[in-house]
């Protein structure tokens, strides 16, 4: 089922025609209304009139998270505050929060794109959506909420936290769609088990999980523990919030970027040049329709690639590969690039290892060391030291085999790695001063 049949199945030429028309308009608006863009474009010697074809987007300078911070809080807004009806912000865990605004029309556009996403993820107007994304400044909760209402589904605005109560509501209200972060989904499965309940007895059919990178192995883990079909959703507050792109239930192979509202590009993060379709690099987004907070060529730091081949679901919009890591989350351990998601897939392949892990990077002298903390559940615990040591060796061996990097495996007690209701903290890098 497709929410907006006309726009989601447009032929490529039609998509590109819409994109070019809207790109010209957004560059014009940004140049005229946001001093940051005017200054930047003047310095680069670019005028809105220089955008004549889609490829011309590559002439435009990038926008970075630092630019948003420098214009904290409202400096990037392109409309007067009396037109802004909603404000969201990032958590600011890595610095000053980035603040974004929406006009009434932006909210309704976002709701439609979320409705498209929910439907592509398996939801219909007949479903009850258990929305365990956090409500508040974080875009996840309200994004899914408005999308659910736009779709016409019933939404349970449970937000994050109070996990035991969530499980009780799942049992009693019988929601059919679950939306939350993938790590929280597994946390819910644990909580159900602790309360003697089984997701198999619940009514879930599909789960739409996002806000943190996750692997194919983690999908399998979630699907078997939660007894639902899991798909990936993508978004970020700087570009809109959740619903920028959505994996369809039919293919489960990449996330459709709603191209009538966003232009995705992939660049080589070092050279900052665009790469060919299909190649991996850093994902760049331009918002085409947002009024209050347009972003042009925003560097997401997310690693992905674009796939323009037709999809079995019938949607014509380009698919982005699931985010495999972040340019700034990527660890370089003794010269080797390591993504947390790679370690995760190794752990998932070893049976009975808990899916909760954390990577700790330290520098001893000039030498970087990577410690993988893995929780020891009943499934792998033995009363014999040698069994546990051989488990450590097995994990380290698999990681060495896959990544070519030696790691230290540290077994830790269950529930000692923090379960966040938002993004799981997968990496602790002690090398930074």
């Amino acid at each position, binding site marked *: 089922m497709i929410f907006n049949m006309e726009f989601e199945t447009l032929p490529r030429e039609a998509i590109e025609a819409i994109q070019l028309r809207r790109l010209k308009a957004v560059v014009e608006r940004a140049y005229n209304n946001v001093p940051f863009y005017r200054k930047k474009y003047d310095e680069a010697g670019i005028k809105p009139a220089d955008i004549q074809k889609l490829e011309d987007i590559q002439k435009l300078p990038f926008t970075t998270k630092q630019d948003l911070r420098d214009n904290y809080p409202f400096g990037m807004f392109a409309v007067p505050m009396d037109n802004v009806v909603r404000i969201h912000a990032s958590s600011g865990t890595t610095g000053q929060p980035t603040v974004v605004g929406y006009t009434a029309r932006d909210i309704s556009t976002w709701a439609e794109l979320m409705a498209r996403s929910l439907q592509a993820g398996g939801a219909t107007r007949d479903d009850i959506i258990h929305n365990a994304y956090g409500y508040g400044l974080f875009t996840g909760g309200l994004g899914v909420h408005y999308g659910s209402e736009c779709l016409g589904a019933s939404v349970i605005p449970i937000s994050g936290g109070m996990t035991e109560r969530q499980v009780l509501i799942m049992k009693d209200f019988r929601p059919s769609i679950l939306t939350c972060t993938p790590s929280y989904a597994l946390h819910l499965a644990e909580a159900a088990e602790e309360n003697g309940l089984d997701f198999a007895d619940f009514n879930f059919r599909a789960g739409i999980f996002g806000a943190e990178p996750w692997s194919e192995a983690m999908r399998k883990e979630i699907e078997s523990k939660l007894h639902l079909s899991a798909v990936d959703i993508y978004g970020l507050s700087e570009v809109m919030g959740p619903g920028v792109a959505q994996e369809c239930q039919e293919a489960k192979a990449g996330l459709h970027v709603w191209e009538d509202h966003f232009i995705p590009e992939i660049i080589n993060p070092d050279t900052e040049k665009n790469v060919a379709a299909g190649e991996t690099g850093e994902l760049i987004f331009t918002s085409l329709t947002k009024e209050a907070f347009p972003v042009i060529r925003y560097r997401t730091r997310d690693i992905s690639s674009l796939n323009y081949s037709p999809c079995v679901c019938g949607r014509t919009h380009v698919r982005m590969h699931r985010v495999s890591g972040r340019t700034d989350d990527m660890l370089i351990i003794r010269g080797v690039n390591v993504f947390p998601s790679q370690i995760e897939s190794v752990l998932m392949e070893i049976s009975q290892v808990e899916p909760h892990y954390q990577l700790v990077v330290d520098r001893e002298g000039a030498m970087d060391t990577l410690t993988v903390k893995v929780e020891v559940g*009943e499934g792998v615990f033995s009363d014999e030291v040698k069994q546990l040591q051989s488990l450590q060796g097995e994990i380290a061996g698999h990681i060495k085999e896959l990544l070519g990097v030696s790691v230290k495996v540290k*077994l830790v*007690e269950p529930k000692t790695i923090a379960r966040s209701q938002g993004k799981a903290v997968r990496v602790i890098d002690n090398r930074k001063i």
Partner: protein
Amino acid sequence: MFADQISVFLENKAGRLAEVTRTLAGASVNIRALSLADTSDFGILRLIVDDNEKAESALKEAAFTVRTTRVVAVEVSDKPGGLMSILEFLDSKQINVEYMYAFVRQRHDNAVMIFRFDNTDSAVEALTAEGFAVIKGDELYTM
């Protein structure tokens, strides 16, 4: 002829062992014997207690990873060479001892050793056939 031992996974960090004893005390469980195997990263605490069920559920509730293992309690003559005689016998039968530790209390003139074998059944069979006194779990917990 087996006894049940409770094994607990412990991270090597301050206060974890105290937390186990606090949990057991809170559940009114008495520790009869214990042994701690540790590496630089983690430890395995092995316990003989007076009430396995209570101990296990209290520890699980406190979020410890717990496992029950079958061990064998054997009386050993409390004099020089007492332990040697049993180990030599086990060796002669090629029965492998995974680990062992001493029970806190003496019984009559004998000491009690707790053994973990890789093949518990054949070990018990051989020990009883040879006339070693293997102590039943129920008796051990309340000695």
